[in-house]
Structures are given as structure tokens and as C-alpha cells.
């Protein structure tokens, strides 16, 4: 963890509050994410972790607060803007395009970069054809990286859960994001698979310098790979710091980790 250079703040969450009717999913949350770091968000079930990502993503519109991305401040953004700014994410409950093949799922990640218009696409002529090949090449690289070559053309709905999680990651990677939000990427995996997944996350972080925000319940993973950790509980922030600090924080222990750790 020493070699790597942590940069400036890239994403800054300021006093975000989010309510659903009576439920306060997030109250007044602030934290920042620095370029190139792996930032974990942990907390008990229902603490508001996924909601936090949804706010960053523009899926939810928080009632209060703002988010600053690379110096630009937004009250709330729409998803398209966020994507254009280079934020990608994966989903807790797998939000893959079930009817499409693995390749097509990853190719959707490239959609923002498609330039040819409908007519060219219909004719598949010249630039459209070339463009398609270029993107395909990028996507193939991700496929190799995630070691899912064998499943290229399988409809993702038919893949086992763990592989679907990988495809989900692949789709986010295909966007060549600067910030990658991962919502429990290792849920439902055994140790071997978690190791694989960690390797992917670390490699992405190292090789492309991608900033990563990670939600995860497996403490060993969080403690091992993250640079800093935010802890949420019932929509409130109860801890923030490097793993060892957080591990020692009594609030965090009582709310989340339990005494056995």
C-alpha cells in the first residue's frame, strides 16, 4: 500500500440527506474520496450504503446536500451526466441485462463513446463498422482480464451468480471510469472467488489508477484492501478513517462489527 500515490479529493460528498417518506435513509452525510484510493463504506444492513451510491449516481435525488466531483458541484445530477463524468458502478442485486450475451452487456458500457448515427448503424458501413470493432477490442481485453472468455456469447441470465457479478464489474470497467462504485461485489462468493475478485479490484486500481468506492460486508476483505473506511449506521456516519482506526472505534464495534472481531 506504500507504492501507490493517493491524489487529491476527486469526489466530495457534502451533507447529504435523503428521506423516503418517513424513513431517513441518510442524514447529513459527508465524506470525501481521493483520487486513486480504495474507499470502503461499511455498516449494518439498511444503514444507507446503497442509497449513498444511488445518490452519487443520480438514481436518487437527495433532499439536501451536494456532491462535488472534480471541483464541479452538483445538487443532484442525472445518471447520464454522472456517467459522462466518468463514474461507473456495479449493483448489489445484479442489474445486468439478462437477455443479452456477456459481450453485449459489456458493449453497452461503451455506448457513451459511440459516435455513428442510426443510419450508419443500420447500414453498418464504414465508420460504424470500424467503430464497432474498436470497441469490441477494448471489451475483449476486459473479458480476458476478468477471465470470462468461455462465456462470451452466453446470455448472462444463464450464468451462475458469481460470474454474473464479474460481468457486472466488466460492464462498469468498459466505461473506462475514473471512479468505480462497487456495491457488495463479493457477496455470495466463496473464498477462492473472493480472492479472484479482490485481485481484479486491486489490479484495476493499480493499473488504471481508477478510484474505487467499495461497499462490502466481509470485514477481512475491507480491512485488507481498502485505504480508508466510512462507517454508516441508521443513515448516520459513525466512523471514518484508515482500517485500523475504524476497527478500534467503539461505536463501530458495537453497531457493526460485533465483539467477536
Amino acid at each position, binding site marked *: 500500500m506504500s507504492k501507490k500515490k493517493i491524489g487529491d479529493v476527486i469526489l466530495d460528498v457534502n451533507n447529504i440527506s435523503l428521506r423516503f417518506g418517513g*424513513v431517513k435513509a441518510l442524514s447529513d452525510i459527508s465524506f470525501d474520496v481521493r483520487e486513486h484510493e480504495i474507499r470502503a463504506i461499511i455498516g449494518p444492513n439498511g444503514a444507507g450504503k446503497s442509497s449513498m451510491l444511488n445518490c452519487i449516481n443520480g438514481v436518487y435525488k437527495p433532499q439536501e446536500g451536494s456532491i462535488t466531483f472534480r471541483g464541479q458541484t452538483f445538487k443532484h445530477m442525472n445518471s447520464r451526466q454522472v456517467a459522462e463524468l466518468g463514474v461507473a458502478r456495479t449493483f448489489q442485486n445484479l442489474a445486468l441485462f439478462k437477455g443479452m450475451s456477456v459481450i453485449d452487456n459489456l458493449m453497452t458500457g461503451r455506448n457513451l463513446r459511440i459516435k455513428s448515427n442510426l443510419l450508419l448503424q443500420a447500414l453498418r458501413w464504414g465508420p460504424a463498422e470500424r467503430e464497432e470493432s474498436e470497441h469490441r477490442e477494448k471489451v475483449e481485453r476486459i473479458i480476458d482480464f476478468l477471465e470470462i472468455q468461455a462465456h462470451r456469447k452466453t446470455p448472462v441470465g*444463464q450464468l451462475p451468480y458469481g460470474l454474473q457479478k464479474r460481468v457486472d464489474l466488466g460492464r462498469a470497467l468498459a466505461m473506462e471510469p475514473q471512479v468505480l462504485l462497487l456495491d457488495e461485489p463479493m457477496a455470495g462468493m*466463496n*473464498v*477462492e472467488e473472493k480472492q479472484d475478485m479482490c*485481485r481484479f479490484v486491486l489490479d484495476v486500481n493499480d493499473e488504471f489508477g481508477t478510484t474505487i468506492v467499495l461497499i462490502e*460486508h466481509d470485514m477481512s476483505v475491507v480491512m485488507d484492501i481498502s485505504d480508508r473506511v466510512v462507517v454508516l449506521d441508521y443513515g448516520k456516519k459513525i466512523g471514518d478513517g484508515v482500517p485500523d482506526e475504524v476497527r478500534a472505534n467503539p461505536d463501530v464495534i458495537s453497531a457493526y462489527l*460485533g465483539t467477536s472481531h
Partner: protein
Amino acid sequence: MSTPSIVINVNGIEVIYNHVILVLKGVSLQVADGQIAAILGGNGAGKTTTLRSISNLLKAERGEVTKGSVELRGERIDILSTSDLVKRGVVQVMEGRHCFAHLTIEENLLTGAYTRSGKAEIAASLEKVYNYFPRLKTRRTSQAAYTSGGEQQMCAIGRALMANPSVLLLDEPSMGLAPQIVEEVFEIVKDLNQKERVTFLIAEQNTNMALRYADYGYIMESGRIVMDGKADDLRNNEDVKEFYLGMGGTERKSFKDVKSYKRRKRWLA
């Protein structure tokens, strides 16, 4: 000690999805009365499929048992419907939660008691579930779709408990749960097992947890059972240690240090 009677006996089953995809290639396993058995194995090994073929939920997925048989206390159950099985006390908690999205948490739990009668008993069960999962109680009037992933998982488990089962098939109960809740869930399993003699068959990725609580374990890979044995024995098996518990030698290896050229174990089967 007399051998306890076999509750679930899966006999060399073969399962095909969509008429073409062969997923289980002759799986056999037994669960004894009052036992906690675990099925372990990687993604796509066929754990879910095995559970589905026991609870007869395959058809809706266009899957079919083409060979072998499943018996419940010596009775073939291929022809029984899932609801018959629930009446006989066999309940499955499906992978991926499957809460009734438009129903509130409490309504979800109450549908779990569909096969039961007796208002008082149902109310008692509800109380029991709320005791197990206090978090559910606070969210009882919220529509299930709007609860967090973990809350939904609790709801799904709680719903199954509402049927007052004698055999519970749990498909990845720990998925998406916070560590202390995982612990709690397994404590509940132990509790039910010891106090109410509920038999468990658990498909789990969290090998560590599963082997701590289970009596017996099956390890599946690519649609076959490649290894089985007492939980303790499995826990001490070197291969299991390395590949399922993530321990090289005696120490747990840091996730940070996993090598890119990691050795992969493939069982010879």
C-alpha cells in the same frame, strides 16, 4: 448411538435445464433427522439446483429431473407440489431473497404462515421472528421492495420460519448480510436445530461459517459431489483449507497478497 433416520435422500439425480443444459450429473446426498448439512461449492456448482430439485421448484425454471429420485422420509416426492412439501414441513428459502415486493414486511411474514391455521400460534411465530430479527420489526410496515438487501434477506428467512418447518433448505442465507447478522443467522439455525429439532440443508459460499455450524458437509463442483465428510474433518482437510477457507498453512492469507498466478485447484472427479 443409533443411526438417526434419513430425512432427505437424494439419489443420483440428473437435472437438465431447457431440455439442453445438463447441470447436475448424478448427485446423491442424505440428510439425517436433526442434522445440519451443508452443501459447499463454487459458483455454478449446482447447489441451488440441488435444493430446487428437493423442493420441486425446478419446473418454473424450465428445469427437469431426468434421472434419479428424491425421497423425504422414505417417500418419493417427485410428484408432490411445493405446497404439499411445505405442508409436510419442508420449506426452502430461495437464493436472491424473493420477497413479495408489494407486500409489507409483516404481510410477507404472514404469507409464510399460509399453510398454518390458528391465529394465536401464528402470532406467536411472528413474535419469534421479530425476536430473531429486531430490524424487521422496525420496518414491518414498509413495502419489502423498499427495504435494504439485508433486510430482505432477513425477511425471506423469517418468512420461512413462519411455516413452522421441520426441514429448512437455506440457499445462501449469509449473502449480503452484515457480519454480526450472519453470525446471528447461524446462531438461529443452531437454536432451531437444537431446541426444535429442525433439520437443515444449507447451501453456502461462506464455507468458514457453514463448517463451523454444520454437522456434515458436501462439496460440489460442476454438478457433482466431489467430497463429503463430517464438518470437522472437512475443516481440517488441507485442500479445503486452501481453497475454501483461504488459508495457506495455518495463517489466513491477506486478500491484498493474492497472487495473480494463483494455483487453482480442480478436483478430480
